[in-house]
């Protein structure tokens, strides 16, 4: 089974998706299950993990409803207010639906020290009881703080989104590569190969610019802790579904069949407990 470990779906409104600025005008429209299903059928992808975009409980409910009605949506990573005092009943009610596999909040750009706050960490500590993973959405300058976070919760599964968003457009590998390798030494951290075109210059990137970043990630995490993700439709600002999938396939072509199978589905299936 080929699995896309990361994508979004939305009914567009300017008020709810203010982060989609003019440079991303192409994605200021609805992206519904029917659109995504067409993309993955053409690309030969069998199923996916649907990830939160809006930061509300209502978003989580809507994603869970979509997953319940579309079998190719194998799991949901929803938004939950981890540092809220009501997080326990919140998780209890959401986890019962079965399709919720993980939680994510928008940590990128948060002030230094945010990931180490007691209330947030108390919420992280609860996730395991509900068999939920935690997707980490950060910028590269937050990797050191992330290392502290994951070390506090050695039995919690963490999934790093978009390889921690290195500034590919600046074409500098350091300090991102060293920081990432250090994070990867933690066995409870997995990583999505996703969102890379978005971190390059979407209008003028080349595969040669991206490949060194993939090489670092592959060496640091190994195929059994990597998973392919499209970040569709956000990726459409600079590429399309088939082009991105083809690029990751070409980078992984030198790997063994088992290693490719891990990156293109088995890791995601295991980590997110799909099917």
């Amino acid at each position, binding site marked *: 089974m080929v699995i896309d470990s990361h994508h979004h779906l939305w009914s567009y409104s300017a008020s709810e998706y203010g982060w989609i600025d003019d440079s991303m005008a192409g994605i200021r429209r609805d992206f519904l299950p029917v659109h995504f299903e067409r993309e993955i059928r053409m690309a030969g992808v069998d199923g996916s993990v649907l990830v939160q975009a809006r930061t509300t409980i209502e978003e989580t409910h809507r994603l869970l409803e979509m997953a319940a009605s579309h079998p190719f949506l194998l799991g949901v990573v929803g938004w939950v207010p981890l540092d809220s005092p009501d997080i326990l009943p919140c998780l209890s009610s959401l986890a019962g639906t079965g399709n919720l596999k993980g939680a994510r909040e928008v940590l990128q750009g948060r002030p230094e020290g945010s990931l180490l706050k007691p209330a947030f960490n108390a919420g992280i500590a609860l996730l395991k009881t509900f068999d939920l993973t935690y997707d980490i959405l950060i910028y590269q300058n937050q990797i050191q703080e992330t290392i502290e976070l994951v070390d506090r919760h050695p039995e919690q599964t963490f999934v790093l989104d978009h390889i921690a968003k290195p500034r590919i457009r600046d074409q500098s590998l350091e300090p991102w590569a060293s920081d990432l390798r250090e994070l990867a030494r933690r*066995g*409870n951290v997995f990583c999505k190969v996703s969102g890379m075109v978005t971190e390059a210059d979407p209008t003028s990137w080349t595969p040669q610019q991206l490949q060194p970043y993939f090489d670092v990630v592959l060496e640091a995490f*190994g195929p*059994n*802790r990597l998973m392919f993700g499209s970040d569709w439709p956000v990726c459409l600002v600079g590429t399309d579904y088939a082009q991105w999938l083809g690029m990751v396939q070409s980078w992984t072509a030198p790997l*063994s069949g*088992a290693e490719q199978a891990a990156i293109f589905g088995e*890791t995601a299936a*295991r980590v997110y407990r799909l099917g």
Partner: protein
Amino acid sequence: MQHRFLGTTGLNISVLGFGASSLGGVFHDVRLDACIETVHAALDGGINFIDVSPAYGGTLAELNLGRALQGISRDRYYLATKIGSYSEARQDFDYSRAATERSIEHSLRRLGVDYVDLIQCHDIEFADHEQIVCETLPALQRLRQEGLVRHIGITGLPLKVFPSILDRVEPGLVETILSFCHYELNDASLGDLIPYLKERGVGIINASPTGMGLLTPRGAPDWHPASAAIRSGCGRAVEFCAKNGIDIVRLAIQFACANEAISTTLVSTTSPARIRDNIASASLPLDQDELQTVLNVLKPIRNHNFTRGLPQHRDPILC
């Protein structure tokens, strides 16, 4: 059942694992139906990591395990086996490429699976480490490329065999170690090596929290290599626990599982009731006071050890 990550393999394994050596009649005679029932009880109880070797019972453990796993979905367990040690009694050790490839092919057939999650160089205190580094591990890497094995590890009794290999190979090649009789109530010397292993992201598997029978009411089997002093020292602890209503096997399991740096502790039995007991023991919180009283009884022989293997691999004896 609590789970921990096995080094950087990405495998999330139960803190109690099933050691299949008993299935080969290593400790006492076995019946196939008991083997099957025990393995099923282990899996139903939340164990998802099973370790075996062609050496146990002259392939009998693998054969019995394969029968027990028939009909069980492959994604319900992680399976580890070994190469290199085929019979200690016959001094039949062979870490060559050909024997390794042959052994894995035969193990897969006996176990009835297409791949094993972990393949381990077995008891490398009996191996030439030059051969392990230059011939055995590259052979295992090739088999990993072919998809027959997913991860690579090493096992042994003397603790020094682990740095002996790990210092000589590139990081990430050897992903796990399996140690036995060095993280239990009477000997926790594996603890000294933990920082070194964690530094390298190597996953730690601990086997036999009762010291292969030393810390059980039944006592250790005749072939056990421990000295008379260690046997009687452990025997005193067994008596003390019996007199004070402490289940020493329960305590032994709790002690081993309490160390978060150790991903899993293996127990081996062919009794379904015993494996259910062991699983229950692993989830009971450790009573530090109770632990201290038993450790005090064991103090005279604490970390006293026994060793074996080629001269260059033997640990210094503490006695």
